[in-house]
């Protein structure tokens, strides 16, 4: 035991630093410095007297090109630059939960009112964590296996794992007790393991294997869960012009989806909006744990006026944080709003380095960069043998609403689900303004199989029927515009009516609603079934000779208001309203 107390309190050995270099050129975020040996690609560099962080992006002859992550005003050739001898890495630990960080994962809570370049961003390492070992000295452990639990990290089960590429005998393990983040709490096969782990953001954390996922991520948004569901470990792009409610939709998912951990990356977005998210998450209760939503959320806030290059790193930082929690056997969702701003940062830097531009000035590597980012999403068996997943949801902001522009076009190719937000729907105040004609989910077959296995064969049929109703109503809408509703045959008039009932009674969902901002799967199913049944009954009515106009004039209030009038899981309440509606229709029977 004595050895353990010695181990506890020591810090990991810092690597030897390469020699000091000198700045040759500064133009915006591009800094060139002398190659002085011991510098590798993607190494971190501390630039100038303020020690601005930067990353090596090219080495050519004796000139090293560095991408600076902060404003470089006043930085001059001749000043020193200190290569750090390690790649851009972040420290992963329990303090991430509930925290708010910048694009390089430096805590913002401790920082000042204005973010000055090079200023110390405070440290979250002050507090201690309730450490509780799960293994004993002398035990054999493999990489990814849990060594200990952190007991006071909130509702999320945080574990200390054997680092990847390490394993063997537990030489030392600390006793239960409060430990600061950077304390070595174990020695495994000669390697020191601290509470928090340092990991380079651009390198995916290893897993045992990628697996197929049959589980849906329940987002609580009906149009998604019903029509365009996403599997855990899958990828989604959400393209939408400004004013289409993109950020509101993503925030709804961040609040209500049934993942264990949410990593929200505000990448080049609005400061006030970020402030709002932060305030709201701190106030809202998690329906599943009863804790605060913020306790399962990691927020990375890199607003549009914060340094552009940190935006480039922020999406990798976000996904690395997600992988860290995934490796504990958790389901994690990364929401990146917006990946277009990230792509713009790529373009900006490529243009400074004089890279040959491809479409619209974006670098030729844009498509592969997007693909590589989304590939970090996966459902996996972790090194420790648990099931975990990282689902990536990326917003895309097409300039001028142009869906053919490079970022949107490439992203569409690499994601499994596409939730396209439509300006016309938003203009008509139909929220979420998710276009059923312009969206897709390639996860539907596996999820349908999953539902079937779980004893719910109706799921896929319900989805198909709702989709068919919408498609038919859309087709007829064009016709109605041309010739007027009165010219349509009665059955088709009922199809138009059915479309309206599905749109208003099922798909619309207000983020501001107290009871309906979140909708459980059972209520979603009940609402869809109710509307479909009512539509069927209407069709029977006109088939029996009742004029379509009379049916259209019926007050469908009970089914249309059911979504607002019932709680998030109240399928029975929906059924009651459906029955009331059917009774009303029954009165029409000749």
């Amino acid at each position, binding site marked *: 035991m004595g050895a353990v107390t010695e181990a506890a309190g020591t810090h990991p050995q810092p690597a030897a630093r390469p020699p000091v270099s000198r700045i040759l050129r500064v133009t915006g975020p591009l800094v060139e410095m002398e190659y002085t040996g011991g510098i590798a690609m993607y190494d971190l560099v501390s630039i100038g*007297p*303020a020690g601005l962080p930067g990353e090596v992006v090219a080495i050519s002859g004796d000139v090293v090109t560095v991408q600076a992550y902060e404003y470089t005003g*006043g930085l001059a050739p001749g000043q020193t630059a200190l290569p750090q001898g390690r790649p851009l890495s972040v420290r992963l630990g329990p303090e991430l939960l509930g925290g708010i960080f910048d694009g390089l994962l430096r805590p913002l809570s401790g920082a000042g009112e204005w973010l000055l370049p090079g200023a110390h961003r405070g440290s979250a390492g002050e507090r201690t964590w309730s450490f509780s070992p799960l293994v004993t000295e002398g035990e054999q452990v493999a990489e990814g296996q849990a060594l200990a639990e952190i007991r006071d990290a909130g509702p999320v089960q945080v574990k200390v794992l054997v680092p990847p590429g390490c394993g063997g005998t537990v030489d030392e393990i600390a006793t239960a007790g409060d430990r600061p983040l950077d304390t070595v709490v174990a020695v495994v096969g000669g390697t020191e393991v601290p509470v928090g782990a340092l990991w380079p953001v651009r390198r995916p954390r290893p897993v045992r294997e990628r697996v197929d996922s049959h589980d849906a991520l329940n987002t609580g948004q009906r149009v998604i869960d019903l029509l365009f569901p996403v599997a855990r470990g899958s990828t989604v792009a959400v393209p939408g012009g400004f004013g289409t409610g993109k950020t509101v939709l993503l925030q709804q998912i961040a609040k209500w989806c049934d993942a264990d951990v949410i990593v929200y990356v505000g990448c080049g977005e609005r400061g006030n909006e970020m402030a709002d998210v932060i305030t709201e998450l701190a106030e809202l209760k998690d329906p599943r744990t009863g804790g605060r939503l913020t306790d399962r959320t990691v927020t990375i806030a890199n607003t549009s006026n914060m340094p552009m290059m940190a935006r480039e790193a922020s999406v990798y930082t976000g996904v690395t944080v997600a992988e860290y929690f995934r490796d504990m056997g958790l389901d994690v969702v990364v929401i990146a709003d917006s990946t277009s701003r990230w792509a713009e940062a790529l373009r900006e830097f490529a243009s400074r380095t004089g890279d040959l531009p491809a479409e619209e000035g974006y670098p030729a590597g844009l498509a592969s960069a997007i693909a590589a980012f989304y590939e970090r999403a996966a459902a996996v068996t972790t090194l420790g043998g648990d099931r975990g997943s990282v689902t990536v949801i990326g917003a895309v902001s097409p300039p001028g609403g142009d869906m053919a522009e490079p970022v949107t076009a490439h992203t569409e190719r690499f994601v499994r689900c596409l939730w396209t937000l439509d300006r016309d729907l938003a203009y008509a105040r139909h929220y979420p303004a998710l276009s059923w004609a312009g969206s897709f989910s390639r996860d539907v077959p596996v999820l349908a199989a999953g539902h079937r296995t779980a004893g719910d064969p109706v799921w896929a049929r319900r989805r198909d029927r709702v989709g068919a109703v919408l498609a038919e109503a859309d087709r007829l809408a064009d016709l109605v515009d041309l010739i007027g509703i009165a010219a349509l045959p009665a059955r088709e008039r009922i199809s138009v009516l059915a479309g309206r009932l599905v749109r208003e009674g099922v798909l619309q969902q207000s983020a501001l609603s107290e009871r309906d901002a979140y909708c459980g799967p059972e209520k979603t199913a009940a609402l869809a079934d109710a509307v479909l049944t009512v539509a069927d009954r209407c069709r029977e009515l006109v088939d029996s000779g009742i004029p379509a106009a009379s049916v259209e004039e019926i007050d469908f209030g009970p089914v249309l208001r059911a979504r607002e009038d019932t709680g998030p899981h109240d399928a029975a309440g929906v059924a009651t309203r459906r029955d009331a509606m059917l009774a009303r229709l029954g009165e029409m029977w000749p």
Partner: protein
Amino acid sequence: MKTPAPDFQTTDDALSPVRTELLRAAHADAEATLARAEREAAQLVHQARAEARAVVGEARRQGEADGADAARDLLVQARRHARSHTLAARRETYEELRREAAKRVGGVRGTDRYAAVRERLERRARLLLGPGAEVSEHTDGGVVARAPGRRVDLSLTALADRALDRMGAEVRSLWEP
């Protein structure tokens, strides 16, 4: 960030007794000018107010409602005049201060302190441009130094200008109570 040279202060120091004295003198002059300007400005507004009252009264007698607009225009005009009067007076005192500063700094030239000042300036020039710099006397006093691709203007007028620029906020005290 740059650090100033060790004897960065020297050129400023040469002026510092002048500077304090200068500001004191300027204060005395400015007070009179500015007070007069304020009085005149107040007078303008006062007058306009009276006229505006008259306009409104007249309009009312004639049963018109538009008097208020005309009266407001009058007041706005007057306030603009008053304001520009005050601002012009402030600029006047400020420019006077600049002229006076230039004169006093130039005056150093006639004194026995000048030789020492000039020598300090020359030293400063060589410190900035290197020992090889070619230093020559400026026609207004002080020196100008040149080296390939660079020059330094340490003429007395340039020094006075720079010193005043550095005074910045202090100059405001001329017109602030």
